[in-house]
């Protein structure tokens, strides 16, 4: 162990569902308990908390629980904590925690992401969505044209890829088909039913070229990742997973002014910070709130050339559980649920520890990459079991 490194230790997850009645604070505590148990840590040993995006008081379903609330609820004495949305996407909260433990601000940091969007939609009196009379900030450049959903913004990147590089719907379908095949093997996954090419191709369009099955769906769940300092690893009972490299970039925080999605520069940066190469990666867990984002991440991270993503995943064998680069082995957000970024890091740790059960990838995986974010936001983590 290197004292100057940061490690992912205990990981935990609540049940994943839609319209759950268990309150989001308790889902978060469920995930905390599971992570503590795996790490062999007690809550008294936790001295840091990091979350994305912090409590969203005006949109509670999106983020019902903030760091303040969790710290108070669990009686944590935090020497460092943070929660906010102005960071390089969801897993930016893990990057922040890793920097905190590497600089001695804390020893064991709970990182969490809790979502309650399905329950909030079903129970608007408890979780009201404010009606916007006018828009400002960057919404003003999109919402007046009824381009309100990220699916509309992502679809335009996908459409351009089709035009420039010849991406086909049959190729893109492999993200959703693979996700759903893997979700069948994950007892916690939201959608435990496989998807055929025919079903995909005949699904209704949401925003061309993205159909219903290219989209994740509102989910209620909490995911916890504990980040521990290298010099505190002897307190932990599970196999520590080293954060070998981290990257996150934003150039223009805009979905329409940027020429590239941020996953491209972020992926390139990641490999500048490590001696590992893409060929060393045993499994990739890549953000797929919309299927095309995972394809872009494959290109951005250098698993194939820019423009080759469609041909790379064609037929699906390469990214299957027994393929050369198993992708989103827990089902991704399309299959397992909209865990919003944290599910990818959770699964990378599960696979590197050999804890995948029936969905465990073959061999002895030692290096995994996980990534969150789409459009102008991107974070990538390279994880290693030494």
């Amino acid at each position, binding site marked *: 162990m290197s004292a100057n490194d940061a490690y992912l230790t205990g990981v935990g997850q609540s049940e994943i569902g839609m319209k759950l009645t268990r309150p989001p604070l308790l889902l978060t505590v469920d995930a905390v308990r599971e992570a503590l148990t795996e790490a062999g840590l007690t809550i008294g040993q936790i001295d840091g908390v990091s979350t994305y995006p912090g409590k969203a008081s005006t949109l509670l379903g999106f983020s019902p629980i903030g760091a303040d609330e969790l710290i108070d609820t669990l009686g944590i004495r935090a020497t460092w904590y943070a929660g906010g949305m102005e960071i390089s996407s969801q897993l930016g909260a893990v990057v922040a925690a890793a920097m905190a433990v590497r600089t001695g601000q804390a020893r064991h940091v709970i990182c969490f992401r809790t979502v309650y969007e399905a329950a909030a939609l079903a129970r608007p009196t408890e979780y009201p969505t404010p009606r916007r009379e006018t828009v400002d900030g960057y919404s003003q*450049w999109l919402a*007046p044209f009824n*381009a309100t959903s990220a699916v*509309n913004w992502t*679809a*335009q990147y996908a459409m351009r890829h089709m*035009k420039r590089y010849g991406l086909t719907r049959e190729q893109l379908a492999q993200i959703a088909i693979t996700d759903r095949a893997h979700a069948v093997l994950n007892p916690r996954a939201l959608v435990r039913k496989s998807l055929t090419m025919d079903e995909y191709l005949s699904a209704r369009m949401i925003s*061309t070229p993205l159909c219903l099955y290219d989209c994740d769906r509102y989910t209620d769940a909490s995911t916890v990742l504990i980040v521990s300092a290298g010099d505190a690893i002897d307190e932990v009972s599970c196999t520590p997973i080293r954060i070998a490299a981290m990257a996150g970039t934003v150039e223009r925080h805009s*979905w*329409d002014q940027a020429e590239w999605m941020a996953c491209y520069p972020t992926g390139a940066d990641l490999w500048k910070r490590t001696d590992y190469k893409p060929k060393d990666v045993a499994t990739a867990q890549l953000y797929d709130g919309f299927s095309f984002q995972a394809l872009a991440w494959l290109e951005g991270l250098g698993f194939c050339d820019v423009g080759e993503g469609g041909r790379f995943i064609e037929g699906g064998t390469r990214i299957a559980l027994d393929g050369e680069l198993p992708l989103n082995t827990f089902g991704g957000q399309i299959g397992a649920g909209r865990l919003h970024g944290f599910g990818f890091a959770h699964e990378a740790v599960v696979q590197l520890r050999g804890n995948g059960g029936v969905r465990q990838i073959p061999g002895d995986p030692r290096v995994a990459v996980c990534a969150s974010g789409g459009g102008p936001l991107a974070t990538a983590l390279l994880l290693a079991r030494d």
Partner: protein
Amino acid sequence: MTTPRVLPRLDLENRFFWTSGADGQLRLLRCQECAIFIHPPRAVCRHCLSEKVSPEVVPGTGTVDTFTVNYQEWRPGLDVPYVIARVAIDGAQGVYLTTNIVGCPVEAVQIGDRVRVTFEQHGEIYLPLFEKVGST
């Protein structure tokens, strides 16, 4: 029928843009020192940090850089399908506007299409929509 829209809240930085269509012209903010266009509008140039920025008329034509046909009825009364496009604006390199392509069937829109601005008025706000050049 007119599809329901959420309108921008006017402020010091954006007012010129959203009201520009009153005389039928599209305007973008331009740095008077280094000549680059700044969009979204800010009080300072993102290239040279000059505060000498002011709106300038651009030709109002452009090219469809990419687009999508939205089929999802996000709220009641939304008239679907409709085209959302990212238009590269002539005479303002690097500036794109997200907009709707109107006045033609959704199937008629392709990447690379030449388009021209047409304003949809909502009180003092004029939303810059685009139609295909040559279409009526």
